[in-house]
């Protein structure tokens, strides 16, 4: 049994009031698949949990204007099975399908994966290359920021410490003809964290790479958007040599740690390899 109080507000406004009143000593509870084990292991010791599952506006996946809006409470299983994502953003379904186990995916949420802010968070690289933004609610109003600006460090985001709540993820509908890919390396086939992950998106127009985004996971304190790798490809013919230069730039951007899962050198090598695969896939090479 754990020692914390439990609150389940029915509105975002009430939830924000509670978080403010607790001055950083309360944690937001969504699916709990990261938070409850963290409390169990003594890595988190919140005095109170604010369960946001009663806030209906945080639910659902739908199209609004030119964007797909994913409620922060959408589960990973929702991402895997949602027909809108399957048609418009299959790379997100692919990334979600590789996370945790069916039981974890039934419970864990899209918002939780971002707010837990593991450097290996598998939704982050695909969301970054899709140009997604997070809609944040805070006591002094809300704002919408690109996913790559949401992370501050391992376990730390713009909403950490009760500063706000992630309400939704807003993903612009991809331009016609653009492609996205996600490649993750896990030593085990299931129930494992990514040692390295790379996502890419690209649009070819008239024999040139007109738009490209590349993001790297588990190789830095936060998921990284790789501007140098993108610059290596943008405007190029998008051939194999261009892809290789982009992959080298991804490896150069990586600043991984050595830990129980992999060494720094291995991660850097695999960042290059996965980047090459991800870029070749979106360029049709």
């Amino acid at each position: 049994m754990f020692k914390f109080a439990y609150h389940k507000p029915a509105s975002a406004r009430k939830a924000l009031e509670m978080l403010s009143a607790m001055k950083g000593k309360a944690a937001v509870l969504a699916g709990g698949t990261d938070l409850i084990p963290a409390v169990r292991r003594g890595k988190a010791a919140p005095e109170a949990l604010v369960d946001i599952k009663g806030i209906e506006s945080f639910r659902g996946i739908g199209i609004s204007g030119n964007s797909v809006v994913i409620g922060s409470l959408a589960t990973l299983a929702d991402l895997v099975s949602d027909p809108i994502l399957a048609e418009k953003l299959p790379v997100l379904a692919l990334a979600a399908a590789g996370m945790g186990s069916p039981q974890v995916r039934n419970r864990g949420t899209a918002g939780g994966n971002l707010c837990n802010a593991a450097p290996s968070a598998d939704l982050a690289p695909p969301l970054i290359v899709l140009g997604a933004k997070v809609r944040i609610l805070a006591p002094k109003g809300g704002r919408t920021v690109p996913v790559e600006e949401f992370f501050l460090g391992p376990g730390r985001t713009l909403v950490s410490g009760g500063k706000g709540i992630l309400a939704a993820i807003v993903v612009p509908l991809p331009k016609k003809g653009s492609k996205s890919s996600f490649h993750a390396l896990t030593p085990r086939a299931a129930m494992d964290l990514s040692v390295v992950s790379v996502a890419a998106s690209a649009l070819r127009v008239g024999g040139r790479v007109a738009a490209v985004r590349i993001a790297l996971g588990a190789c830095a304190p936060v998921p990284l958007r790789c501007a140098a790798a993108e610059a290596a490809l943008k405007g190029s013919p998008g051939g194999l040599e261009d892809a290789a230069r982009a992959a080298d730039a991804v490896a150069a951007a990586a600043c991984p740690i050595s830990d129980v899962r992999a060494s720094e050198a291995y991660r850097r090598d695999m960042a290059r390899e996965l980047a090459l695969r991800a870029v070749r896939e979106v360029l049709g090479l």
Partner: protein
Amino acid sequence: MIPIRIAVNGDVYEREVPPGTTLLDFLRDGLGLTGTNAGCRAGDCGACTVLLDGKSVNSCIVLACECDGSEVLTIEGLSRGGALHPLQQAFMDEGAVQCGFCTPGMIMRCAEFLARNPDPTPAEARAAIEGNICRCTGYENIVRAVIAAAGAMKGRAKA
């Protein structure tokens, strides 16, 4: 204490629970339903899997207070009127049980899986139990049992 109203295996309970009590501990210690096993207590092994509103979850990382208004199905509630569920029968027939510790969780996970995918391939059955660890069987007999149960359930549906 948090008041909750929860249906477990069709029976409705109105109880007060401490906020830190997991669904697993509520089932085992609060209701005496010890068929659900406590393994890793960290959401890694699947031994404590139950159905929460029809979805398989690790009950060790769900709080009882989160389940207010929900329906829970445990291994004790799977058989109907004394007849074993086809999954239970198939696990016995195929030798899918050795020490038995993972079995309730394995069967509850597969109960949701077969409800969504009544005609799975062995590869799909294997993927379905990726979050359920078994240290005895090597999984082969479990996968066979899931396929056999799917067949038995289809036969029953036609009858």
